[in-house]
């Protein structure tokens, strides 16, 4: 393409961008003369240049637009939004034509007569024809020749210029400010040849930059001269400076080896000079972030019109400079996010008013430097992220289960919007809603080593915070080694460095084979670099066969080496403890993790070179570099590593979670049981937790009093009860005693022999036909009688339970022996309804509660419970699980409280998860208390408390259901 056309395109594109911003400003400041003047000049320039280059269509459109602008400028025409919209249309046409020109090298075909009509109508609207245009004599002069010179230009600029054109240009030249201060942004913006342009073109170029100088709100009062330089030239410069840096590094390293050398002084100076040069060249790549934001005002304006909302965009920190490359990469993500804010975040004026907010929504863009990073914030005061909708989307996309969602805080749930294909927008607008947005945004940002975080409060607004490392090319990096291969980790990413060894307190521990580390009371997940990169643990000898990376061969190789080989097996986990290991702790997003490496070298300034295209897919590397000694090493990308671990651990987490769940439920199933023999051969069991002590007492110490056997025990008299009549207590010898004690009262149960302690599921299979037994279960492979301790305690001492906190709140009654139907002693025991879908859990709790003296009915599901309710059953207290299929605890509680006979029955919630959130929710739906499942003590004490508090409600006459 013609050089001239190329330059023209660049300039015009720049001008158009400026025009967008300016026009938006104009709309808000319709009487700003400077602004008007500038806008006029820009369009005028475009028009003028078109003339030379033979771009009739463009010229025409620009000309008519210029007309209208001229009238604005002169004050003849009022600047109203409709007119501004029209000018925008004009600009858009120009954009389109220019785009076509860019593509094909010539103007696209098309008809602008409609637009021109409108422009003319506005133009002619108020003032009379041409007389109102004093200052724009050029325009008048141009009119006639414009039409004629329409079709004929082959794109050359010399020889076919009409006199009027020249005059126009000259006049423009005179009126345009000279080559004065231009702000720095201009030079590095456009990718074009710095070809010496012919004189006429030069002038518009000068004009545009000077206009640019006026335009940029970030203009410094004392700006410096600037010039356009091709990006390629700068890139070359950068590369060469990078080489220089590397060479300097090499020299410095060699110098370090030498003690004294005449090279020292010159090399030190060289060192400084190169550092400065490096810094200076880096600056050339820096551009103010305002450049990336330039299109946004226009976008917001269009958005607000399109969606009938009022949106105000505020930009802070446009001066903040960042690398040109980075700027390119974040332009789109930023635009996308601002669009989202406008589309989804900001509500329409009525809604806002109703919510007590101002009618105009506010979007804030804020950029600033912070510790080697640039922080960009996009904040809006809209309605925030819709938590419920997101939850729905998550569930419908199968990204998490309902239980998992219960666990998460709103912030965690919000993070899901970064998943691919996620969009809660009900309809796809032209602006957003296609669901391809946020994941791409995050990917793009992470590509440049940055991170993005989200904070949102429903009803108040959302804030996105993007963190980007300041420079891409030269970074400080920590060189580490794993399995004899070296890698670099960007220093900024390294939070901490920890050394572990076999003998120290810091040890790498493993949980289910995965290494973790305890760091100041936090558990840090670890990943071994060798494992991550699938490199075998070599020895300290130089490289092995290059293609030999199979773990199978490693054993063989190790044998061959005969050297310092890890004596243990080839399992890396074995070796972890056999030597010093270093952990590099990095932070990605909000979470930390550690990378296990073998050795740590020092920090070096390295030049980041992008990896070859065919290696780009490896997300663990962000580049490679050449070290001072000439070797090539890969640069690790903590983000990539985190992603990788995330994938691993997501999979793990899922299995771990399900394992945990089943494990947890398994735990719930097992109770520690004390096995003993008493009377017959059938082993008997009591929950170990109830037994205070196991003693062997000398039979001769047993005394008798009032028909009761006693023994002096720890300064007190302890009654003894044989398990049953078949337990013989001889005159001599020793007997095993199970001591139960509580609040100063003790009782000893005489048994024949203590067998063992087992952890077992209590699965009471046969109900206790006999008194004193809860039933039979299989313990340690044998049928075992589960003892109802409560029976023995009470039979011995009627008042046993009365003073206890876990008194089943029985009323005074007579301690007769049981009447054989399983209920104990005719006391008015309190009835508990236990609802839990896990049979194991029911079987564990039931005996516990029975032993504590309650009458327990346990059901599997809330539905059954509700049925019982309908049938008229009554309970003193309802204990319910939360996590149940079909209907969960919360729902159950709601139902009960709403409309059932059990409205007034106190309800306790039991669950494996007891976060504050859950507790609050529980209280909300009507649970009196919220107790963790494994907390038996609290359960019992709470039960008692609750019952005593609800004394009024306990007026039933227990019917066995």
């Amino acid at each position, binding site marked *: 393409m013609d050089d001239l056309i190329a330059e023209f395109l660049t300039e015009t594109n720049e001008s158009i961008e400026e025009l967008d911003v300016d026009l938006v400003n104009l709309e808000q400041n319709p009487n700003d003369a400077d602004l008007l003047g500038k806008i006029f000049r820009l369009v005028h320039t475009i028009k003028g240049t078109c003339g030379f280059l033979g771009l009739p269509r463009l010229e025409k459109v620009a000309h008519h637009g210029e007309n209208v602008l001229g009238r604005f400028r002169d004050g003849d025409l009022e600047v109203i939004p409709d007119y501004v919209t029209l000018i925008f249309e004009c600009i858009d046409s120009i954009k389109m034509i220019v785009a076509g020109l860019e593509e094909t090298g010539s103007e696209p075909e098309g008809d602008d007569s409609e637009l021109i009509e409108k422009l003319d109508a506005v133009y002619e609207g108020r003032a009379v024809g041409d007389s109102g245009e004093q200052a724009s004599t050029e325009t008048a002069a141009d009119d006639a020749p414009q039409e004629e010179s329409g079709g004929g230009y082959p794109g050359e600029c010399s020889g076919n210029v009409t006199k009027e054109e020249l005059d126009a240009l000259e006049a423009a030249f005179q009126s345009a400010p000279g080559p004065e201060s231009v702000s720095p942004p201009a030079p590095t913006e456009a990718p074009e040849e710095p070809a010496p342009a012919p004189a006429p073109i030069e002038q518009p170029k000068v004009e545009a930059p000077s206009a640019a100088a006026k335009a940029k709100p970030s203009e410094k009062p004392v700006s410096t001269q600037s010039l356009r330089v091709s990006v390629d030239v700068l890139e070359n410069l950068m590369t060469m400076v990078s*080489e220089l840096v*590397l*060479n300097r590094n090499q020299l410095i390293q060699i110098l370090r080896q030498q003690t004294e050398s005449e090279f020292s002084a010159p090399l030190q100076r060289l060192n400084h000079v190169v550092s400065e040069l490096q810094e200076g060249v880096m600056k050339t790549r820096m551009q103010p972030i305002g450049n990336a934001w330039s299109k946004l005002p226009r976008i917001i304006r269009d958005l607000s019109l399109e969606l009938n909302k009022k949106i105000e965009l505020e930009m802070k920190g446009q001066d903040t400079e960042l690398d040109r490359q980075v700027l390119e990469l974040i332009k789109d993500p930023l635009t996308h996010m601002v669009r989202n804010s406008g589309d989804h975040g900001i509500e329409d004026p009525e809604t806002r008013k109703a919510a007590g907010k101002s009618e105009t929504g506010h979007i804030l863009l804020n950029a600033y430097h912070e510790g080697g990073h640039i922080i960009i914030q996009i904040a809006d005061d809209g309605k925030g992220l819709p938590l419920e909708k997101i939850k729905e989307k998550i569930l419908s996309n199968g990204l998490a289960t309902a239980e998992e969602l219960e666990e998460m805080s709103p912030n965690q749930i919000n993070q899901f919007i970064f998943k691919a294909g996620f969009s809660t927008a009900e309809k796809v607008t032209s602006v957003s809603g296609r669901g391809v947005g946020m994941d791409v945004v995050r990917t793009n940002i992470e590509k440049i080593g940055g991170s993005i975080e989200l904070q949102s409060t429903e009803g108040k607004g959302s804030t996105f915070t993007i963190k980007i490392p300041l420079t891409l090319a030269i970074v400080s990096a920590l060189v580490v080694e794993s399995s004899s*291969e070296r890698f670099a980790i960007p220093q900024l990413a390294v939070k901490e460095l920890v050394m572990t060894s076999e003998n120290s307190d810091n040890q790498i521990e493993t949980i289910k084979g995965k290494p973790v580390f305890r760091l100041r009371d936090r558990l840090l997940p670890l990943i071994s670099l060798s494992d991550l*990169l*699938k*490199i075998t643990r070599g020895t300290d000898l*130089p*490289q092995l*066969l*290059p*293609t030999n990376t199979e773990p199978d061969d490693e054993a063989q190789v190790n044998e061959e080496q005969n050297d310092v080989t890890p004596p243990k097996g080839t399992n890396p986990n074995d070796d972890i403890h056999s030597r010093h290991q270093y952990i590099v702790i990095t932070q990605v997003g909000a979470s930390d993790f550690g990378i296990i490496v073998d050795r740590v070298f020092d920090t070096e300034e390295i030049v980041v*070179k992008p990896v*070859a*295209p*065919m*290696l780009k*897919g*490896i997300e*663990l*590397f962000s580049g*490679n*570099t*050449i070290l001072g000694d*000439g*070797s*090539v*090493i*890969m640069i690790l990308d903590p983000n990539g590593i985190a992603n990788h671990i995330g994938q691993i651990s997501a999979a793990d987490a899922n299995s771990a979670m399900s394992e945990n769940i089943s494990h947890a439920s398994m735990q719930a199933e097992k109770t520690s049981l004390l096995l003993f023999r008493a009377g017959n051969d059938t082993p008997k069991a009591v929950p170990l937790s109830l037994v205070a002590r196991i003693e062997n007492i000398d039979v001769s110490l047993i005394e008798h009093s009032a028909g009761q056997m006693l023994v002096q025990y720890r300064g007190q008299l302890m009654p003894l009860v044989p398990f049953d009549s078949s337990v013989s207590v001889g005159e001599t010898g020793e007997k095993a005693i199970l001591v139960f004690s509580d609040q100063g009262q003790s009782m000893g149960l005489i048994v024949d022999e203590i067998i063992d302690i087992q952890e077992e599921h209590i699965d009471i299979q046969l109900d206790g036909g006999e008194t004193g037994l809860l039933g039979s279960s299989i313990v340690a492979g044998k049928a075992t009688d589960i003892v109802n301790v409560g029976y023995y305690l009470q039979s011995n001492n009627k008042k046993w339970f009365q003073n206890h906190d876990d008194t089943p709140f029985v009323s005074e009654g007579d301690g007769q022996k049981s009447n054989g139907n399983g209920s104990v002693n005719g006391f008015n025991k309190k009835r508990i309804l236990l609802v839990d879908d896990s049979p194991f859990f029911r079987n564990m709790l039931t005996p516990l509660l029975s032993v504590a003296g309650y009458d327990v009915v346990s059901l599997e599901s809330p539905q059954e419970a509700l049925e019982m309710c309908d049938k008229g059953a009554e309970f003193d207290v309802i204990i319910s699980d939360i996590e149940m299929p079909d209907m969960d605890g919360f729902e159950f509680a709601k139902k009960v409280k709403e409309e059932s006979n059990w409205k007034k029955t106190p309800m306790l919630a039991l669950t494996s998860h007891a976060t504050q959130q859950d507790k609050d929710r529980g209280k909300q739906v009507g649970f009196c208390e919220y107790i963790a499942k494994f907390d038996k003590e609290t359960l019992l004490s709470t039960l008692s408390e609750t019952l005593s508090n609800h004394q009024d409600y306990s007026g039933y006459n227990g019917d066995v259901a």
Partner: protein
Amino acid sequence: MSVEQQTHEDELSSGIQSKEFLTIMIANQRFGIPILQVEDVLGEQTITKVPLAPPDVAGSLNLRGRIVTAIDVHCRLGIEPTQTSNGHSSMGVVVEHENELYSLIIDKVGDVLKLKDEDFETTLATLDPLWKDVSSGIYRLDGELLIVLDVPKFLSTISSSKD
């Protein structure tokens, strides 16, 4: 570039159409690379392996400050991998492709030959598919055949990581 001029002059003077190739040996088969595509010829180099890289990528090396990606040609062509020792490569031919430097690791480098167009044939259909993909033709020489390596094609079709 003087080679280019020379060739040009030769062509003009003799009227014979021909092209120059750097010949290389890979597993006893002679290949040719258009001389203008060749940037450098390297002897033994220390190559750093790149973990998780595709199997065709032998690693990276440092060439006067630029990082060059070493490609194991044997692997790409489905032949027995190069037997090297201690992470050193044998000879390598450095080519440039889309602004990146690559070193093709081969067995031996031969002479630069000027081959006449008339001896050129487009690839045989029966050639091994892996080879066919990357060759742009065959030259008939005295006593053997020379397969022309289509470098751009070769490089752009390096398989992506297999894990």
